[in-house]
């Protein structure tokens, strides 16, 4: 189960967030900061999966933008990892060469995300 989906840049600015379980707004900021911190502390030798509290974080980096998905234990990490890439490919197609700023145009991104996710499972 996906718990949340985040797009955060290296400066820690959230570009897109979507929570599938209600998280209070002040806790969200905290969570996002911690998540991006733990992603930034990873080296290229380390794998893209991090254990964080009760979740597993799966992240992928595109230029300065991190896409992080928080899942629970039952999820197949690699499937999510590839799902992120699928999503990015769709975005790239939609925005014809997607850039970080495009992502902030989130109403469309949200729609794409939702549909992509529904299709892929």
């Amino acid at each position, binding site marked *: 189960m996906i718990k949340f989906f985040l797009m955060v840049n290296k400066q820690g600015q959230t570009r897109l967030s979507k929570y599938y379980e*209600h998280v209070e707004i*002040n806790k969200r900021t905290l969570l996002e900061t911690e998540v991006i911190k733990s992603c930034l502390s990873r080296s290229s030798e380390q*794998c893209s999966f991090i254990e964080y509290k009760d979740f597993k974080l799966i992240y992928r980096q595109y230029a300065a933008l991190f896409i992080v998905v928080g899942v629970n234990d039952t999820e*197949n990490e690699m499937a999510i990892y590839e799902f992120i890439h699928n999503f990015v490919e769709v975005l790239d197609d*939609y925005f014809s060469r997607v850039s970080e700023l*495009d992502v*902030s*145009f989130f109403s469309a991104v*949200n*729609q794409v995300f939702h549909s992509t996710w529904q299709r892929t499972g």
Partner: protein
Amino acid sequence: MSDIVEKTLTALPGLFLQNQSATGPAAAKASFSSRLGGLVRGITALTSKHEEEKLIQQELNNLKATVSAPNTTLKMMKECMVRLIYCEMLGYDASFGYIHAIKLAQQGNLLEKRVGYLAVSLFLHESHELLLLLVNTVVKDLQSTNLVEVCMALTIVSQIFPREMIPAVLPLVEDKLQHSKEIIRRKAVLALYKFYLIAPNQVQHIHIKFRKALCDRDVGVMAASLHIYLKMIKENSSAYKDLTGSFVTILKQVVGGKLPADFNYHSVPAPWLQIQLLRILGLLGKDDQRTSELMYDVLDESLRRAELNHNVTYAILFECVHTVYSIYPKSELLEKAAKCIGKFVLSPKINLKYLGLKALTYVIQQDPTLALQHQMTIIECLDHPDPIIKREVLGEYSYLLGKETGEEVITKLYKLLTSDSISSETKAWIIAAVTKLTPQAHSSNIVERLIQEFTTSLDTCLRQHAFELKHLHENVKFMKGLLPVDKSCEDMVVDASLSFLDGFVAEELSQGAAPYKPHHQRQEEKLSQEKVLSFEPYGLSFSSSGFSGRQSPAGISLGSDISGNSTDTGLKETNSLKLEGIKKLWGKEGYLPKKESKTGDETEALPVPQENIIMENVDQIITKKDQSQVLTQSKEEKEKQLLASSLFVGLGSESTINLLGKADTLSHKFRRKSKVKETKSGQTTTAQNMTRSSFSSSSNVTYEEDYYLDNLQDRGDKEVKKFSLNSELLDSESLTELPLVEKISNCRLSTPSLFADNNMEVFHPPQSTAASLANEISLASSLLEETTEHMHSDLMEVCNNETISVSSYKIWKDECLLMVWSVFNKSASELKSANLEIAPAENFKITEQPGCCLPVIEAESTKNFQYSVQMEKPFTEGNLSGFINYQVMDTHSVQLEFSVNLSLLDFIRPLKISTEDFGKLWLSFANDVKQNVKMSESQAALPSTLKALQQELRLHVVDIIGNEGLLACQLLPSIPCLLHFRVHGDMLALWFRSSCSTLPDYLLYQCQKVRAWIDPQVPVPIPCFHPGLTRAFKAECFVSVFLSSRCKKHGKSGGDLVSKDSESPGHLCIVYPKTQN
């Protein structure tokens, strides 16, 4: 890949629309240069969090003004909503926009509606009460002939929907399963999945329809139905064994590439679908040989087919291995799967390595020998830089014993331990692994050597692990029980409460050890100690009066000498204002000359540090005033004070907090003095609170409220009114030493009113029909004395049995809501150990009032339990539950549970202020909400509306100027809210302002309800019920009206609107337009 993209894009009606309106991505870019774009760029350009905060606050303020302005078009609203979402996404509260999001979804055209729905799905959560307001819109859209609208409605339902309202839309969603468009069918399935998640019982009857969806000719619909099946099979696999064949066939088709090519991802056919199916098969085949046999073939094929070297094939392989190892084992398959893992662990790609190790854990649990081939790789992984990998290795490695004995493995591990190349963290993991192995390796010398070496290690973590091992090693029997060889995957029962230590704790406590305090408590205590300390250097003595300060002893003695003083309220206001004035006196540069202070000479003479000055000043001022017995104050002075208060509105929140901290100490200290002082200090605090509330930014509202609750004493609260009362009330007579409760109620009753019948006793929550008449009489006679002084609700029976009957009623006291539970003993014997407890509720602060304390209820008598309730956070309604237990004849004890509904209105009290004060307060509040309401008859509207507002919402009518009215109220303890309204033609413009950000919205909602009460001609778009009803009841009523298009009670059918019903005041029925054909 581009195929799937195309498919996805065409499947997006919303995007499709946008494409049409201005050709695809270009459109996105174009509108991106809008104000959202500006905001995003602005924020990106900033460097510090602080700047961002400032920018967003400013943005939010602008947005707030725009969304509540009456002339904002829906198009602008859409634009605003997008920015609001962005602000909230960055972590800033945008709750003032929630209601507008719902409105946008309700009223907008397709594009605006989409944004409205999106905003709702992002803003609200499942149990948010505003969500109920969306139901109507969803129903309307589901019935629309426009596919896009139907799609949007289904999408929102699949994301967020209130559970109670499922019956209202379920038939509509079910119908959509037969729709000719596959996207509608797919979304309908997903909506049903959502329903299944939140209320599985409600969709039980349509399981047969799920099967139809599984066999749908469209792959998308089939894939969507797999979500439901995965969930259902997880809960009860035995009921779906018969579907195994279907799942196997589907998987065969997918693996065999029979799906349309647009489902391929990097030329792998529908990978996520495969994973989903494999998962389902794994659940179905678990411990079931016959079912498992059906899937061996397809699993074998899956393993074979996944030869492409792409990440996603590894994801499928991994899932496949998992499935093979979770179903009934077939050795040939197991071997193949184990071999497959080699591809993972040998891969240079770190992610695959992780996946491989994770897969190995499945293998080892089934058959360790199969994992032996990878042993060397595993050991290599031990020193991997990634801790998650190490954990995966060592967690299971200890069970991986093949031909090698435990001792040999331990020797290897020990060698690793002594090598310098590995980090201490890895070492810790290794010791953990050794610990696991030790019970199997008999009397190992190496273990002892290891213990010896590492118990003296400098690394704490290592040392701890070593000590653990040492102690376990000394008690081998225990160790074997703790670390069983073949039970690695069974859960152990852990006593998280550490109850086995209770005896030890009790012993230590009896020997005088300090009881354990949680970290936060210690922290608090430390802080409070520091606070006390900071006062000490300045104090001469710490007398029992608790007051310290060089100049104060005289003040104390004087203060305690005086009793029964009457003081002018206005003066106290001065005092409190001066607290702030004084604060301002001492700037960075030192002393700043004071302008409007009237007792300046005293303060100026005291060059003592700030904090002390304030305390001493107040004390002196009060004393002085007490002495001089100033009874009146000129109007000019009052105006000056108000001016002063508005001047200090701009003070930063930090300084306010400081001020409050001091006020707090003050009030505590004064309280211990004479009674007169008590009153005053209370007033001081309150006055501060009043001013404070105008400072507060929305972000610290919660803190502020907590503060009120903690610090405000009842007395102070009552004084709020006096402090801000109309000048007519400010006669010295009302401030004598009479019990305050009485005084206030007198004040209230004697207020000159605009309407003859403003006694407000009209508020009647629904009566219980269950309570027997006899009971009521006996109970009524037992109503508390206070009841006669205050407004109160009728008695309502909340629960009963053959022995007792519990009724409750509310007393709307001026400073709090007093809940009284009357327990009537019907039996002829007395009840012992009677005890009533109220469960702590999230939004309330409940304090038990001292009352009768004997736990015995005599035969045929009544006992009252009183609780004062304060609201901690504004909301429309909440539940208070509790239980009563008692003993009959010393034998068995009985427990009865009950609950009572509380509404926001229970905590609203009139705020009596003058027109002038209203004006000043109005300017100081930042949060406002505007709404235009259409009226039916403009002539009679003003007086009747006023009356209704006054009676139902308990607003105080401050003034009426022409066709405008000013009203004021406060949410207890003291959050003021002001209402300005103007009748213009047939429009009624309501304008709320408050220091609290959410209060205006809630009051507006209540106002709309009231409007429905008074004017039956106004069609109300939202369900309106009396606040006394429970949420569940409302939902039920709403649904029954919906489904039958006919209200059970009135027999009215669709389209009719039934107004206030005289027989049952609780039931307001609005019949909605027909939903079904």
